């Protein structure tokens, strides 16, 4: 117990990047400012200490890829006991409506074609704190999102090996994480077969070229590019092919939004609820930081933008509370499911406080709204991003 506990702590620290911060990074390099990651600003912003949920300070999103140890952390019960997911003990079971149930080790998975995709992973509740009236749940602000390179195998290749029966409609995922009290429902969810068979839906064992860290789902997690992270089950151990959607709280009650707009706190008469799936179009202003100061000189405003299943077409900025909008310019990598970085050179007109707003539009014409339709659990927030700065004379 004590040994595995230490090993566990080591892994957790590794996931948090504390060990890296403490032992490997020379302080002098950071002080000299020649460390590319010098915008790292202390620990992640913890929203819940146990189980650990934490978001990334948005100012760190100047880099295209979010480093593993700076990536937001979210789970319902915390990582599983490390014994359950060591290479010797861990297995992936694939069953249900299949011709041939499988039990795969990591070595077996390595036999499938290796694929890499850069994709945004975002908590469905990112921005929950901005919904009015307020709603219950982890009060995420802007940083429960990140962009990483995921490497693993196509889910559809694994399903093909098991052989799908004709009545297969949904694919259910279960991880090794468990609540402290067994009367709490397990985090079990499913995705429709169509998404499961999409060539970009994958089971990832690497994140940014490193084995998946414990906090991010070691040894294997689901990645559903373009969809919110409630489908990206971590510590994956069981895939079950079914005719029906998964049963239980986390599929049938939680992670659902009303199909049509509803009055806040009105109850849900005549509205049906559907699972949170694709991401909605969204942009963030990364620099300057909120409440920051800038000089009366040209300022490069930087940010990121992404959408669900379409690419981002434009990002615009407003300096007059949304009356007029100026187009920003895209820079850097352009990949299907990754976020797009953008810049705008702004010449402040005079000293004083200025609110900078951003909104993105995607290729399907979805526009980031001023504020997101209220929903009882506060999912899918994508209201205009807003940063207030003081221009100094």
């Amino acid at each position, binding site marked *: *117990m004590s040994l595995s506990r230490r090993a566990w702590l080591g892994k957790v620290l590794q996931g948090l990047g504390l060990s890296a911060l403490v032992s490997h990074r020379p302080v002098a390099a950071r002080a000299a400012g020649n460390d590319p990651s010098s915008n790292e600003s202390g620990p992640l912003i*913890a*929203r*819940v*200490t*146990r*189980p650990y949920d934490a978001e990334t300070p948005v100012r760190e999103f100047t880099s295209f890829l979010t480093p593993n140890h700076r990536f937001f952390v979210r789970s319902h019960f915390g990582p599983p006991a490390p014994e359950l997911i060591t290479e010797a003990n861990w297995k992936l079971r694939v069953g249900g409506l299949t011709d041939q149930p499988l039990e795969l080790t990591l070595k077996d998975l390595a036999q499938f074609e290796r694929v890499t995709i850069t994709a945004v992973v975002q908590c469905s509740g990112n921005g929950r704190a901005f919904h*009015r*009236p*307020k*709603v*219950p749940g*982890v*009060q995420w602000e802007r940083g429960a999102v990140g962009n990483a390179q995921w490497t693993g195998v196509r889910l559809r290749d694994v399903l093909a090996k098991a052989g799908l029966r004709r009545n297969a409609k949904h694919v259910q995922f279960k991880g090794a994480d468990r*609540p*402290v*009290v*067994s*009367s*709490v*429902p397990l985090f079990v969810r499913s995705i429709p077969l169509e998404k499961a068979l999409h060539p970009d839906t994958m089971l990832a064992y690497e994140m940014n070229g490193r084995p998946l860290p414990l906090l991010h789902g070691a040894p294997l997690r689901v990645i559903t590019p373009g969809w919110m992270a409630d489908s990206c089950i971590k510590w994956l151990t069981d895939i079950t092919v079914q005719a029906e959607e998964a049963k239980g709280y986390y599929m049938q009650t939680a992670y659902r939004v009303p199909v049509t*707009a*509803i*009055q*806040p*706190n009105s109850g849900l008469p005549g509205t049906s609820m559907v699972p949170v799936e694709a991401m909605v179009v969204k942009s963030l202003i990364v620099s300057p930081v909120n409440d920051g100061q800038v000089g009366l000189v040209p300022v490069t405003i930087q940010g990121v933008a992404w959408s669900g299943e379409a690419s981002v077409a434009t990002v615009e900025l407003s300096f007059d509370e949304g009356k007029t909008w100026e187009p920003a310019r895209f820079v850097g990598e352009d990949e299907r499911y990754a976020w797009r970085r953008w810049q705008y050179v702004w010449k402040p007109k005079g000293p004083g406080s200025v609110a900078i707003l951003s909104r993105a539009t995607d290729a399907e014409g979805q*526009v980031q*709204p*001023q*504020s997101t*339709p*209220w929903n009882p659990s506060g999912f899918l927030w994508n209201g205009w991003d807003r940063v207030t700065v003081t221009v100094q004379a």
Partner: protein
Amino acid sequence: MMTFSRVILSALVLGLPGLAVDTSAQEDDLASVSAALAPRAEGLIIARCSVCHSPDLVSQQRLPKDRWMATVDKMKHWGAEISNDESDLLVRYLSARYHPGAPDHLPPFDSELRKAEPLTQEPVQAGPLVGVAVRGAGIFEHNCQACHGAGAIGGMGPKLAKNPILKHEDLFWETVLYGRGPMPAWGSVLSQQDIADIHAWLLAR
């Protein structure tokens, strides 16, 4: 999209007068309700609600009474060990302290806890307390097992069976009454007899 934003807007407009009625007199009422209930309620939150998650998940919410009620009911259904009286008290406290108009930053739990009084002001016993192991088994199961494991063999909290601390009674009592780090303080939840019973049961493991 148009209809969405219109619904939101009208709802906001309708909602605003409601907020404005929230006069400072009402604020004072809420503050005095929460101050009166704080010692017991904060004790319950630490002892009962932090078995599965840290109390910061509770204190970051700002909810109206009906949503607090639904949340506490859900937690009870999932396994929070609270009686009906305790959940009533919690809902009254939570909706007075963590209501939608409350400031984002309230003093942390710790400062409330320091004010927490023991729930049971029993007269100091004439003689030493005598624990009853059979009663201790049940009290342990309801209060300690979630963290210290069935049979006290350890879990998220350390193993207590055969733990040397059992022989250092003053240390044991201090830890259980006042808590330590993630270990909740039980002084405002359990009676001294309850703690003595748990101690007796642990010694027999």
